[in-house]
């Protein structure tokens, strides 16, 4: 692989949040929200990040966008390490990367017009020279996401949930970024509207060469549908990383298997024959994660050794990586 192919290269990324207690706000512990993860995203591809709430998937996305300054590790974006850059150096980079939020109701300023919301990044980054150019670019963005440019002067509450998410997508596209982090972009939408947004994201990726997504979601079927490869996270670590076909056909990590079997398929004929693995217990608190492999207390394959060693994410062939000493 040539280095040019890689847009994002994350190496041993750690993001710890201090837990402060008492009158003096002394640090008593760390929440290891992201604990030494590594992955690459190739230009023009989509990496899905999947896991249950609290697994660190959103934190990972925010580290890559440098909304957080990581505790440790490297984030190479277009070949440059941005993990510890000061804010002043980050700003110009922000036009190369953007974010689509989960909640289309909370993430749009209710008093700004849709056109201003979409056009603001253009002004912030001085990407347009005249009012006319601005107007044209905003209208073009509206058309790209399937909104009528005649609606630029309306305010968010005049739009439906799906249309609002289209505004969010248009805003993310405004600076023609190479990376868009999509954080649960469809989970707040109605079932019949979700497909519209998924298709829009896919069409945009086909139309705009080199557009790359980090797609964060808890719904494995959606993630698998849109992503080229998928990373499964559990309590701050990646437990399995592979292409989305292998993920379904040959999942290796016990947690991935549990996750897959927990998702019901809308087909009673298939459901009849599926194996169901029901986990015991709940996800432990990330403040006090289990020793060794984080998954071992709930794992059907666990052996005593699992509580002692942290399994490395190792390659098992064809780019398929898994962090388990039992496979």
């Amino acid at each position, binding site marked *: 692989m040539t280095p040019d192919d890689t847009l994002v290269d994350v190496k041993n990324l750690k993001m710890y949040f201090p837990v402060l207690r008492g009158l003096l706000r002394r640090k008593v512990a760390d929440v290891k929200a992201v604990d030494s993860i590594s992955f690459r995203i190739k230009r023009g591809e989509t990496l899905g990040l999947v896991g*249950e*709430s609290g697994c660190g998937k959103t934190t990972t996305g925010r580290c890559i966008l440098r909304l957080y300054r990581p505790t440790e590790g490297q984030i190479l974006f277009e070949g440059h390490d941005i993990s510890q850059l000061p804010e002043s150096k980050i700003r110009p980079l922000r036009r190369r990367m953007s974010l689509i939020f989960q909640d289309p109701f909370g993430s749009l300023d209710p008093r700004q017009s849709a056109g201003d919301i979409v056009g603001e990044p253009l002004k912030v980054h001085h990407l347009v020279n005249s009012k006319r150019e601005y107007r044209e670019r905003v209208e073009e963005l509206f058309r790209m996401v399937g909104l009528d440019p005649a609606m630029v002067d309306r305010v968010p509450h005049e739009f*439906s949930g*799906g249309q609002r998410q289209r505004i969010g997508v248009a805003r993310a596209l405004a600076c023609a970024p190479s990376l868009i982090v999509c954080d649960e972009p469809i989970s707040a939408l*109605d*079932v*019949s*509207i*979700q*497909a*519209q947004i*998924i*298709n829009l994201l896919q069409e945009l990726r086909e139309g705009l060469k080199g557009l790359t997504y980090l797609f964060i979601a*808890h*719904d*494995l*079927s*959606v993630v*698998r*549908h*849109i992503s080229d490869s998928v990373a499964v996270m559990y309590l701050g670590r990646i437990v399995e990383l592979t292409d*989305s*076909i292998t993920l*379904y056909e040959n999942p290796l990590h016990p947690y991935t298997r*549990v*996750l*897959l*079997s*927990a*998702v*019901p*398929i*809308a*087909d*009673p*004929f*298939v*459901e009849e024959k599926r194996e*169901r693995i*029901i*986990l015991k217990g*709940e*996800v432990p608190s990330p403040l006090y994660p289990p020793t060794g492999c984080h998954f071992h207390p709930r794992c059907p394959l666990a052996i005593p050794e699992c509580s002692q060693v942290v399994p490395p994410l190792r390659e098992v062939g064809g780019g398929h990586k898994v962090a388990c000493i039992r496979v």
Partner: protein
Amino acid sequence: MSVLLSVNNLKTWFKTDRGLVRAVDGVSYYISEREIIGLVGESGCGKSVSQLSVLQLIPTPPGEIVSGEVIFDGHDLLKFPANGPEMRSVRGGKIAMIFQEPMTSLNPVLTIGRQLTEMLELHLNMDSEAARERAIELLNLVGIPEAASRIDDYPHQFSGGMRQRVMIAMALSCNPKILIADEPTTAVDVTTQAQLLELMKDMVVRFNTSLIIVTHNLGVVARYAQRIYVMYAGRIVESGITKDIFGNPRHPYTIGLLACVPRLDEPRGRKLVPIVGLPPNLINMPPTCAFLPRCPYRIERCQQEPWPELRLIDGQHYTSCHVDTREK
């Protein structure tokens, strides 16, 4: 299997400042003993309101159960006054409901134990000691670890999944004939969702209960329900045995719904077919089929005639559509 509950032509309307909302507009369904049925639809289609109406839990005004009957145990529940003794013995007693949001449906200032024993004392006339014992037993049954000590905890001390288990324990406490689960797993993670649904399925067998799952998740009904009702804009548009609905969907809305959700087992690259347009605004709806503006199968007749009644197509399979969708 004999029919346990049958709802006939139920209409629940809400009078709002902007007009009349026919949230539930002529819904009929039934459930038999020890059966699991699914009520599927998107938000605002009236699936929850139809369930709340059965228990007369509709806030009046603005809501009103305009017509219909709910036959349970040989009586029409809608004939009983909403706050009378008959309804109170049904509610939580013979028909129990598990709500969507376990945090808001549990009382935050009472211990779990108090909330559980209250039901047992009220409905089953247990004394406080027996009630407490039974409550611990129930919490054990639904998989709360160390139930005997956790019974004195408050709801905020439980995780979302555990709270929903407490809700299930409460619902089961009086040996109900019917359990209504209204979006029981929307607020929880997938592995917890699987745990809770398996638990409910086991409990239904153990307690000889029937279960109504109200959900927007087609996968959940495909996995658990024996029969399905698909709702759209206040009406049932298709109903039948689960395998018939999924294997041979006939209403354009059902067909659309199945084509627009990504499936875990699909080959890569299948293009999703979204349903165009938006779910309808229920205020002052036209008399024609509510799915008409979004329907790819629509014909002249749909624009001229009122929303068609459900018609039998075969076996137990009903659809409310003029068009034979197989021909397209």
